[in-house]
C-alpha cells in the first residue's frame, strides 16, 4: 500500500499505513463505496452530495490507514465535518436540528479524542498508535465509544440515520460507526469488559429495534446491535476474536448497506417509512424482496450468507464465556424475530388499506447496487475462504459443520416461531421503558443553550455593575497578592 509521510511541527505524519488490523476496513470500505455511491447518486442526482460523499470516503480510508495519532485525529475530524455537512444539507428541508445534534455529539467525541491524543503525545513524545498511557485512555475510550455508538452513547444513530434520506444513510452507515470500531480495536484491544459490553449492546439494541415502527429507526438500532457483536469479538481478547470481529465488520457493512438500500427503495415507493402502513409489497417489488430476504438472512446469521460466516467465527472466538454466548444467542433470536416481522409486515401480509397503491419495482439503477451487494453477501458466504484469506491472517476453524449449522439455525427458527407471540409485548416494553433515552439527548443540547443564556445574562450586566466588578477584581488582586 502506498504510504506517505509529512512533517508537522517535528512529528512525522504517516499516511496510508496498512497493517493486519486496518486491512479488512480498507477492503470493506473500498468494496462498499462503489454500490453505495451508485445508489446514492441514482437516488439523489445531486452532484455536490456525491463529491462530499467521496471526500468522506477518502477521510474514512485515511482514518483507518493513519500511521500516527495526529493524522488519525485529522481524518477523524474531517469525517465528522463532512458527514455533518452531508446530514445538514440532506435534512435541511425538514429539520435542521438533526445535523446540528449530530455535529454536536461528534464534536464531543472529537474534543475527547483531541484531549486524549494530546495527553498521550506529551507524555510519550511520540505519535505512535501503540503504547497508550493510562491517562489518555479514558478520553480515547469515550471518543471511540461515541463514534461506535455503543450504549449509552447510541442515541445519535437513530436520531440522525433514522431521519436522513437513505441515499445518504447508505454512505454514512458504512463508515462512521466502523471507524469507531476500528478505534476501539486499535487503541484498547485488551480492555476488560468489552465483550460483555458488546453483548449487552447487541441485546439491548435489538430490543429497542423491536419497539420501533419506522423502518429506518429499526435499521439504525440493528446497526448498533451489529456494532455490539463486533465489540464483543474484539473483547474476546484473542487474535481469532479480532479476526472474527473484522469478518463481522465486513459482513455488516455489506448487509447493512443492502438493508438500507432496501429501506430506501421501499421509502421511495411508499413515501413513508412507517411499517404499520405497509404490506403486500412482494407482488409489486419482487426483486427488492429478494434483496431484503438476502439481507435479513445475512443479518440473522443464516447459512450460506456471509453473516453466518462471521457470526460463527465470533461464536468460536467467544466459546469460553457462557454468559456472553447466551447473550449473543438471545440477540440472534431477537434479530431473527425482528426481521421476520419486518419482512412479514412490509412484503408478505395482505393489507387492503395500505397506501402503496402505485408502488412498483425500483428502477434498475437502484436495483443493480442492491443485487450486487446481495451477490457479495451470498458469494462471500459460500466461498468464505475468499474472505478469511484476504482479510485476516489467522486460520479459522472449519465453519460449515453440522454443529455450527444447527447453532445458527435454531435461534432463527425460534425467533420466527416466536414472532406472533411476543412481538407485541416486547414492543410495549421497549416503548415504555427505553424509548425515552433517545429523547434525553436533544433536551441535553437545549440545556447547554440555556446555560449559555444564563451566562449571558450574568456576564453582560449593566455598565456600572460591570465597572464595580472591575474595581472589585482590582482590589481582590492587590489584596490577595502574597
Amino acid at each position, binding site marked *: 500500500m502506498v504510504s506517505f509521510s509529512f512533517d508537522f511541527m517535528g512529528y512525522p505524519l504517516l499516511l496510508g499505513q496498512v497493517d493486519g488490523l486496518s486491512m479488512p476496513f480498507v477492503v470493506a470500505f473500498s468494496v462498499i463505496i462503489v454500490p453505495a455511491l451508485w445508489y446514492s447518486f441514482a437516488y439523489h442526482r445531486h452532484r455536490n452530495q456525491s463529491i462530499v460523499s467521496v471526500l468522506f470516503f477518502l477521510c474514512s480510508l485515511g482514518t483507518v490507514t493513519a500511521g500516527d495519532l495526529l493524522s488519525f485525529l485529522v481524518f477523524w475530524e474531517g469525517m465528522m465535518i463532512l458527514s455533518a455537512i452531508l446530514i445538514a444539507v440532506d435534512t435541511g428541508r425538514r429539520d435542521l436540528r438533526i445535523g446540528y445534534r449530530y455535529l454536536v455529539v461528534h464534536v464531543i467525541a472529537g474534543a475527547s479524542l483531541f484531549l486524549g491524543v494530546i495527553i498521550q503525545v506529551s507524555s510519550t513524545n511520540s505519535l505512535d498508535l501503540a503504547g497508550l498511557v493510562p491517562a489518555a485512555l479514558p478520553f480515547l475510550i469515550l471518543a471511540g465509544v461515541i463514534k461506535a455508538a455503543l450504549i449509552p452513547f447510541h442515541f445519535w444513530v437513530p436520531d440522525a440515520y433514522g431521519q436522513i434520506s437513505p441515499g445518504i444513510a447508505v454512505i454514512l452507515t458504512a463508515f462512521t460507526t466502523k471507524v469507531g470500531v476500528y478505534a476501539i480495536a486499535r487503541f484498547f484491544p485488551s480492555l476488560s469488559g468489552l465483550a460483555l459490553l458488546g453483548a449487552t449492546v447487541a441485546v439491548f439494541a435489538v430490543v429497542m429495534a423491536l419497539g420501533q415502527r419506522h423502518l429506518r429507526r429499526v435499521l439504525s438500532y440493528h446497526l448498533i446491535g451489529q456494532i455490539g457483536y463486533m465489540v464483543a469479538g474484539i473483547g474476546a481478547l484473542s487474535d481469532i476474536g479480532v479476526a472474527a470481529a473484522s469478518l463481522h465488520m465486513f459482513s455488516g457493512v455489506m448487509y447493512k448497506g443492502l438493508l438500507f438500500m432496501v429501506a430506501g427503495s421501499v421509502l421511495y415507493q411508499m413515501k413513508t417509512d412507517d411499517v404499520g402502513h405497509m404490506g403486500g409489497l412482494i407482488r409489486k417489488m419482487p426483486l427488492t424482496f429478494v434483496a431484503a430476504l438476502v439481507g435479513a438472512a445475512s443479518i440473522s446469521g443464516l447459512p450460506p450468507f456471509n453473516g453466518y460466516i462471521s457470526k460463527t467465527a465470533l461464536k468460536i472466538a467467544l466459546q469460553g464465556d457462557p454468559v456472553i454466548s447466551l447473550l449473543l444467542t438471545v440477540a440472534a433470536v431477537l434479530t431473527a424475530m425482528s426481521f421476520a416481522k419486518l419482512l412479514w409486515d412490509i412484503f408478505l401480509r395482505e393489507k387492503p388499506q395500505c397506501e402503496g397503491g402505485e408502488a412498483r419495482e425500483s428502477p434498475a439503477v437502484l436495483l443493480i447496487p442492491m443485487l450486487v451487494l446481495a451477490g457479495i453477501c451470498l458469494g462471500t458466504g459460500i466461498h468464505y475462504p475468499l474472505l478469511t484469506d484476504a482479510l485476516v491472517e489467522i486460520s479459522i476453524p472449519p465453519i460449515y459443520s453440522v454443529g455450527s449449522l444447527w447453532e445458527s439455525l435454531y435461534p432463527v427458527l425460534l425467533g420466527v416461531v416466536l414472532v406472533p407471540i411476543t412481538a407485541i409485548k416486547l414492543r410495549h416494553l421497549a416503548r415504555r421503558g427505553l424509548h425515552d433515552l433517545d429523547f434525553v439527548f436533544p433536551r441535553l443540547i437545549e440545556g447547554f443553550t440555556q446555560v449559555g443564556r444564563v451566562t449571558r445574562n450574568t456576564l453582560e450586566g449593566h455598565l*456600572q*455593575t460591570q465597572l*464595580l466588578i472591575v*474595581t*472589585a477584581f*482590582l*482590589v481582590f488582586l*492587590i*489584596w490577595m497578592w502574597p
Partner: protein
Amino acid sequence: MIRKSVALVILAILGLLVMGGLAELPLPAERMSESVTSRHILSEGVSDTGAVNLVTAVLFDYRGFDTLGEATVIFAAAAGVVLLFFRHDLPTSRLGLSSLAKRSIMVLAPFVFVTGLYIVMFGHVTPGGGFQGGVVWATLTILLCIVYGTAFEWRFINTRTKTLLESLGAIAFILLGLVGIYRGDFFLSNIAAGFRAGVPGELTSGGAIPLLNLAIGLKVAAGLALIFYNMVKKDVG
C-alpha cells in the same frame, strides 16, 4: 443603595491599598538625585537643546516623539468628533450677542491672537508652548462663535480651512522630524541635525523647537476649533 454601599466599601479598601503603595514612594529629591534622566536634563538641558525652559526642552526635544503622539491624539479626537457629527455641516445661528459685545470682541481679538502667538513662539524661553498658545487661538474662534453666531465664524474660517491648517500643522511637524533623517541623524533630532542652538534665552534659540511649537500651535488651534464647532452646530438630520 446597595450598589452605593458596596462601591463605598470597595473604594475604601482600594484607597487604603493605594495609600499603602504611595507611602512607599521615595522622596522626590532622593529619586531625582539617583535618576540619570533628571540629572542629565537639569545639568545639560540648556546646552543640549538651547532652550531655557526645560519643560519645553523635554517636551519637544528629549521626548519629542511623545509630543507627536499627543498632537496626533488631538487630531484623532477632532477627526472622531467630525466623524460622529457627520452630515450636520451647517451654520446655525446668525444672531450672536449685542453690538456692544461684538464691538468689544473686535477690539480684543487682535490682542488675543497676539497673546497666543507670543505663547507659542516663546515657548522655549518662558512657560508656554504650542499647546497652550494653540488653545488661546482656539478660544478666539470660540469667542467669535459665541459673540457673532456660528454662521459668522463659519464664513470667517470655514471647516475646510481649519482642516487644512490642522493637516498642514501635523505634516509640518513630521517634516521637521524628517529633517533629522535627511541630515543623517535621527528622527526628530534637533541640534544634532544642524538646527542652530542660538543664544539661550532668545527667540531664535532652541533649534527647531520654535518651529515645532508653531506647527503644534496651528494644529491644536484648528483641532480644538473643529471639535467645538462640530459640537455646537445644529443637528439637522
